[in-house]
């Protein structure tokens, strides 16, 4: 039993150290909309919708504990989060009816999941105050959702169809790479983005450690 508890604690620590990083925030913000980010336009639209849903989820998770009891907090926050997702779906249909038709269920699903759902889950997991996502994290997640999904959409469109916004990209136009038309290709592009963010995060942390060392 003691061993089980030790293992469970080690696993908790591993998950916590993975979740509270900028890389996780970027991945959590972008992953739900990834399948729909097949072109630059679709990626940018999905990114904008997801960004709004993340900001709304952050506001909701601060407001819900004020009027809902302990047991009802997560279901109430989930329902309100889904209502925001529905409204964003309607907004997308009003702004870009063709893209909305092409994206199908994905806008609502992407807005109700990912970083927004992690914020809701945080309420149920009873995380310590210092471990909660801060306002800076929320803004970072919202901005990264737009940037990463637009970039992933652009790269997917470029590598799969050989053109971006109807402009052919030289030799790529004649040799499309089939894997980028599937989810595995999109995941590889997101892995590349995660590598870049993680490397930046580590170098930043290294520089901070160096400064603290100099001060000491």
């Amino acid at each position, binding site marked *: 039993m003691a061993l*089980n508890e030790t*293992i*469970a604690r080690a*696993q*908790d620590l*591993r*998950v916590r150290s*993975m*979740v509270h*990083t900028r*890389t*996780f925030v970027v*991945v*959590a913000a972008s*992953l*739900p909309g*990834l*399948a729909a980010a097949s072109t630059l336009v679709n990626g940018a639209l999905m990114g904008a919708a997801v960004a709004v849903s993340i900001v709304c989820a952050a506001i909701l998770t601060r407001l819900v504990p004020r009027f809902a009891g302990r047991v009802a907090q*997560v*279901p109430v926050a*989930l*329902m309100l*989060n*889904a*209502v925001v*997702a*529905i409204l964003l779906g*309607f907004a997308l249909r009003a702004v870009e009816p063709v893209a909305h038709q092409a994206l*199908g*269920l994905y806008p*609502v*699903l*992407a807005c*109700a*999941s*990912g970083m927004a*759902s*992690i914020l*809701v*889950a945080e*309420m*149920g*997991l*009873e995380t310590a105050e210092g471990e909660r996502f801060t306002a800076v994290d929320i803004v970072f997640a919202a901005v990264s959702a737009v940037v990463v999904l637009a970039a992933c959409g652009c790269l997917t469109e470029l590598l799969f169809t050989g053109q971006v916004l109807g402009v052919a990209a030289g030799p790529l136009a004649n040799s499309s790479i089939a*894997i980028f038309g*599937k*989810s*595995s*290709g*999109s*995941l*590889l592009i*997101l*892995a590349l983005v*995660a*590598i870049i963010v*993680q*490397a930046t995060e580590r170098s930043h942390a290294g520089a901070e450690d160096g400064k603290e060392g100099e001060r000491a």
Partner: protein
Amino acid sequence: MSFINAIFTAALDNNLVFTQVIGLLSVIVLAGRPTEALRYAGLLGLATATSGVLGSALYAGFLAPWGTGYFAPAVLVVLNAAIVCGAAAVMARGLSAAERLEALRRATIPAVSSALLGVSLANAVAADAGTATVEGLMGTAIGSGIGVFLAVALFSLIRNRVDDTLVPRALRGLPISLVTASLMALAFSGVAGIAGGMFA
């Protein structure tokens, strides 16, 4: 035969997690607890299948006839949370009060997974289109549950076998998880059109 065909198609050809990238984030987080991965895989799989069955019944029986189909996601997420909490409470039977509370808290991650919402909404869309049969919808729900179970169990198994010390430093952590997911998605796309087609 269409029931079995729907099960195989949903579990392998159109796997929610790896083919449609729905609920992958919760799979990555749950895979961080390898000793409990099978239990969580079972919980998420069972909840997905139940959500698909009950969600499509709720949609076809109440929401669509009352003209409130557009509100389905908000109703279905609450239903999904109730299903996961109910299943977690059943699975936590026999544990001490503190352990049961902890198990219920940890069930929040499966409860917010978009895999549950994905299957019930997809069934709702199929019901709206008028092309779906009852056995097709049930098969899709059960197949999606099996697919999600396979996704969590296999991903956790493979991720646990990857020795981080042998992985290049730049890829350690989330990037290698995403590359693993990408390769698994490729493996699932290898059976696309074959598994479901066997019973067509």
